[in-house]
């Protein structure tokens, strides 16, 4: 039964309408935004709303075309073709979500081109066939324009086949709502965490590669729900993951102490 609960997503701008329109027209979607701002959750919510299965592929730099499309395996003296996740989505008409697409090699992402434009086809050279995408198939990629993407940027030819939706960290009131919903903590604690997150996001230099995302705030909130002191939770879930540098860590601890009042329960 819990499968039917829609994923919790609070729209901030027009992203839901844009996604709906792109899906209806069979266009591919590129989600841009910093890590932990809710890209994956947004896709889950949209897949649920549109009633399509969701196939997620977490991209990494060893991801090859064969990992997406499929490959021959040896089985009992025979070669057997096994579909990859992309092929499965094309056949079933599912939403195929390639998380952190820039992590994949560029020669891998080229296979997406005929799928992402008007052709909506997947050529499978090893089988010598070309699959037409079933209706309902939608290609969604996520892309973090910040730190991760710099090693290999997305090719322009890939980018221009997509509709871009830009996501960012939600405004304070929405983020507070998210924390309350996700971790079932009270408003007061959520306010403190959101303020702390906002302060860290204002830091421009200071040796932090990434700022505190909604995801780490939720993690901190959940630790609190599990009985941890708010300060300890923030140290463990926010400061620790952001940096290894002892000086920056100490600075973050001090910020946490400043923004978080003691909750001695």
């Amino acid at each position: 039964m819990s499968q039917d609960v829609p994923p919790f997503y609070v729209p901030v701008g027009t992203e839901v309408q844009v996604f709906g329109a792109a899906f209806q027209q069979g266009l591919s979607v590129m989600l841009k935004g910093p890590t932990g701002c809710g890209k994956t959750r947004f896709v889950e919510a949209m897949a649920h709303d549109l009633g399509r299965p969701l196939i997620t592929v977490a991209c990494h730099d060893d991801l090859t075309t064969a990992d997406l499309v499929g490959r021959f395996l040896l089985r009992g003296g025979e070669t057997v073709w096994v579909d990859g996740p992309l092929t499965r989505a094309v056949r079933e008409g599912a939403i195929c979500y390639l998380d952190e697409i820039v992590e994949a090699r560029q020669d891998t992402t080229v296979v997406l081109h005929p799928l992402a434009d008007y052709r909506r086809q997947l050529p499978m050279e090893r089988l010598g066939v070309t699959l037409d995408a079933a209706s309902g198939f939608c290609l969604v990629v996520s892309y973090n324009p910040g730190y991760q993407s710099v090693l290999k940027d997305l090719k322009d030819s890939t980018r221009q086949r997509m509709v871009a939706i830009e996501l960012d960290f939600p405004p304070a009131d929405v983020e507070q709502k998210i924390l309350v919903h996700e971790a079932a903590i009270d408003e007061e604690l959520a306010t403190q965490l959101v303020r702390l997150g906002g302060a860290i996001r204002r830091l421009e230099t200071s040796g932090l590669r990434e700022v505190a995302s909604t995801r780490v705030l939720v993690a901190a909130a959940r630790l609190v729900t599990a009985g941890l002191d708010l300060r300890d939770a923030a140290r463990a879930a926010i400061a620790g993951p952001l940096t290894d540098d002892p000086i920056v860590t100490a600075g973050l601890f001090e910020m946490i102490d400043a923004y978080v009042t003691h909750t001695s329960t």
Partner: protein
Amino acid sequence: MNSATKVPVDAQVDIGNRYALLASAISGRPLEVAGGDPGRPAWSDGRTVFINAESAAQTQLQCVVIQASLIYAGSLEPRVLHKLARKPSATRRYLSLEGHRALTALSDLLPTTVVSVADPMTAQRTESPQSSLILAIGSEDIPDPPASFGVIRPRHVGIVGDERIDGLGGAHVPPRERQAVLRELEDDIGEGAIVDILASPVGGGGPIGRLLKRLLGDARSSGAGSPGTDAPTRLTRSSNSVSRLGSPTMRRLAVSKDGSLDVIRGFVYPEWNVHLRSYRPEWCTVVELEPEDGDRSRIPAGNTRSLRRALARLGTEVERQRRQPQGEDLDLDAAVDFYVEVRAHSFPDEDVYIESQRSRRDLSVLVLLDISGSAGESSGSGGIVHDHQVSAAADLTAALHQVGDRVALYGFRSQGRSAVHVYPVKRFDDTVSTLTESRLGGLRPGGFTRLGAAIRHGASTLERQGGTGRRLLVVLSDGFAYDHGYEGSYGEADARRALSEARHQGIGCLCLSIASTTDAEALRRVFGTAAYAAFGSTDLMASAIGPLFRAALGTAEVQRRRSERVTRSTELLSIERSGT
């Protein structure tokens, strides 16, 4: 608080490091925090917040937050404050108004405990520093500021504000613009005592100068014995292969520094005498000195993204590897073998796939940063050359580190042949951290440029510590080779020679000149056939750096193969000769 919250880093880090991040987050720009005089109220000069190091943590926190809020709100704008000079009571009234205004305006961003100090009634009476100023000078009744507001010292803020670019001391400058402002800043040498010592480390009677004199005096007398024993053989052998000349002879010197014994390493290198067309053996002594920590906010947080993108593509080719346990294609030969083994009832090898693997990154880069006095000259594009070079060095180092290359950064300058000083800002095995930034911020231009010795030392360090097949030496310099007995064509020829030695060792050389006024002809004379480029500013570097790196590495590759061949044939020759 339970014991789990006691983290050891708390103890190590002083007051400044603890609060700097918080202060920067609130003020929206890099801000330092320092312990001020005990018992004095907190204040700020617009760049550093001074708080009482002995007061309670909660009080310190409030003071930091309030001073940072004042800076964010533009309350410490020198243009406003200079009207308050020598008016202590008006300043107090101004502080009260501005403090409450800043806290109220920022109430959504501040820690809740501090917001409670704000008095919205007082805050309502003013909407800008200017209107606060008018109210403060007037005669209306204004409540005294709470103790946690500290004080405003109009004249001290003014001094800093005037020395620096107008606006940086006061109103909030958005981070992107601020980088531009920082780059244009004149070198503010007058600001601290440490700076003065660094500015001329060997000259005169400074403590470091005295230490070095003693140190180098010892070097000449005590060092001649032990290393000399194997030096002649090395020199005769190296007449065939120039590259071996570069190997350093290490001298261990014991010098007393305030009564204690220190061991400092000196490296000895030859120098090329273009007039006699021969080397002067053991001519230059290179000493590695620990760089002083400086102000890391001086290093603009450069945008290394385009640099990283350019550098990431170097040396990452995809190779197809056979007989892998997994992969995207079947390796037919392996599969056939597999079935042969199965049919023969022996033990089959199950690795029957072909996998495309990206070869691992195999590059180490040593960046040599020229910190001689000529870098202190003003550049064609604003600011001084040194600041441009430092920001280029910081960006390059960060970008290379982030794409996973081994990278080191050394500053260098000289004062005659026996005092070539290199400052390891980041050694190969150090990680890029805030320490790297503060060391880089501590470098100040001074002294001369014995390029050749620095290049030889860089090349030899790369050779010893690089640890990768492909090595690259990047020299960031204005190309003005000048030192005692190292003038004009002599210096230029030696620098050129040192670069060609490095290339023979298979080290790629790339010389970059950022924002310098040296003309292209002079650069060509010094850098010779090495890949070199001059850029007006750091931003322009990213677009060209990829091809430059590739060209430098390519030349080194060719040279290395050629010199290996030559070495092998000369060795063969000598074997034949010794045989006869």
